[in-house]
């Protein structure tokens, strides 16, 4: 069992990463900007933040899921740009990881180094206008061709990083009737080799550094060796990537929440808390206790994943608990700190950024469905 005490190696990872983020990355980030921070993306690539989980032989850091969690928690704590942290995490967990787990040797050798070192940006294209939670009921088709390749046709939406992406991990139905049971295929799509287009970034409430947009396939021809896994096994590819995303993306939220609680403590200590001081102290203490609990649950799930144990319930619970706490805590902190937080953009931004955390990687209802199913409910 995981001991919960970080090893010397893990402590070193957190300390050296924190130094890099504070000194080299943060100066390149503007959390209020509404544009993708290309310069910071390239800088992050110098430490292979986009390839934390990818083996060193393919140009990544070679960390297991537990250490990926710790690294992303460190990013979430030290970088106030939650949109940038999200762009890195979505790229890593929903795109780079499935290329590593399901790509052919050839594909991995060609794409993983650039996906790990900041040379390439990737987007996951699953959601469609008529299929969100019921993702496998997609309308985008992948028609098998005589050449052995496929022709993709249809529209995707809500794809994080898509407007700036060089590479997509996209899902299309080779047999719509069969849906997840043999009817969905996963592809790596390269903007330089395949014809597709992307829409302009959508206006949204938060996560501004991570542009969100549509993807359009118009009879896009894709060769057979760009299939991830096997034809008809795309549901497996998607689920593995979601298991990683649900287990590790919340680490950035944990870091974000701890940063806000630490700031809240400073704000309260440095000002006259007035008549409600004790009530506010009590409330902050209770949020800290809840954060400690979901953090340990997150560690336990990341550890499970690092042991290569499939645990959909663990991943769903971790995601559910972290995102629900994130959304509630960011609202509550703004409320209980009153005007003190209003002058610090971090509290307001985090509140807006947290709004979508209970939607992406599957909504809270979908996580509850997975948990219910795992206990035969």
């Amino acid at each position, binding site marked *: 069992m995981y001991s919960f005490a970080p090893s010397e190696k893990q402590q070193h990872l957190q300390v050296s990463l924190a130094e890099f983020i504070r000194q080299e990355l943060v100066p390149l980030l503007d959390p209020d900007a509404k544009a993708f921070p290309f310069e910071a993306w390239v800088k992050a690539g110098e430490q292979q933040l986009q390839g934390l989980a990818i083996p060193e032989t393919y140009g990544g850091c070679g960390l297991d899921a537990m250490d990926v969690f710790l690294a992303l928690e460190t990013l979430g704590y030290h970088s106030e740009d939650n949109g940038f942290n999200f762009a890195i995490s979505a790229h890593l967990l929903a795109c780079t990881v499935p290329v590593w787990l399901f790509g052919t040797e050839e594909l991995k050798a060609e794409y993983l180094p650039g996906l790990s070192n900041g040379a390439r940006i990737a987007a996951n294209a699953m959601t469609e206008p008529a299929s969100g939670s019921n993702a496998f009921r997609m309308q985008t088709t992948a028609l098998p061709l005589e050449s052995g390749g496929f022709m993709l046709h249809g529209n995707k939406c809500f794809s994080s990083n898509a407007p700036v992406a060089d590479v997509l991990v996209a899902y299309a139905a080779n047999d719509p009737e069969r849906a997840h049971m043999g009817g969905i295929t996963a592809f790596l799509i390269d903007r330089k080799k395949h014809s597709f287009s992307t829409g302009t970034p959508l206006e949204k409430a938060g996560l501004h550094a991570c542009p969100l947009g549509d993807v359009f396939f118009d009879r896009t021809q894709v060769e057979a060796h760009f299939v991830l896994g096997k034809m008809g*096994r795309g549901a497996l590819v998607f689920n593995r990537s979601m298991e990683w995303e649900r287990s590790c993306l919340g680490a950035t939220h944990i870091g974000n929440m701890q940063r806000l609680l630490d700031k809240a403590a400073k704000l309260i200590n440095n000002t006259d808390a007035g008549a409600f001081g004790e009530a506010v102290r009590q409330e902050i203490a209770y949020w800290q206790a809840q954060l400690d609990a979901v953090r340990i649950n997150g560690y336990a799930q990341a550890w499970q994943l690092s042991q290569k144990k499939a645990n959909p319930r663990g991943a769903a619970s971790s995601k559910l608990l972290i995102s629900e706490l994130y959304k509630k805590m960011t609202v509550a902190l703004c409320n209980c700190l009153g005007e003190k937080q209003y002058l610090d953009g971090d509290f307001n931004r985090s509140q807006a950024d947290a709004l979508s955390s209970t939607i992406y990687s599957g909504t809270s209802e979908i996580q509850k469905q997975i948990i219910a199913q795992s206990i035969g409910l």
Partner: protein
Amino acid sequence: MAQIKDQLREYLLNELNLPLQPEELQDDTLLVSDRIMDSISSLMLVEYLEKTFNISFEPHEVTAENLDSLNIIEAFVNQKQVSAKAA
């Protein structure tokens, strides 16, 4: 013969964590029809069978019918192994 089922039982209970007690997993327990095993677990099982028993599913063979019970899966694996040897 029992070996395939033993290996399968171990995989279904300990790796896929199907919501069943060991004594509830009989040779004819309906895994897909009775919604004990969802489609993602079914696909994971397909990958496991391919790797462990050195067989390959054709796309049209990835169906609930071929994966619905220990008896059915064992028969499918045996038939695949026989036809691989004959080829």
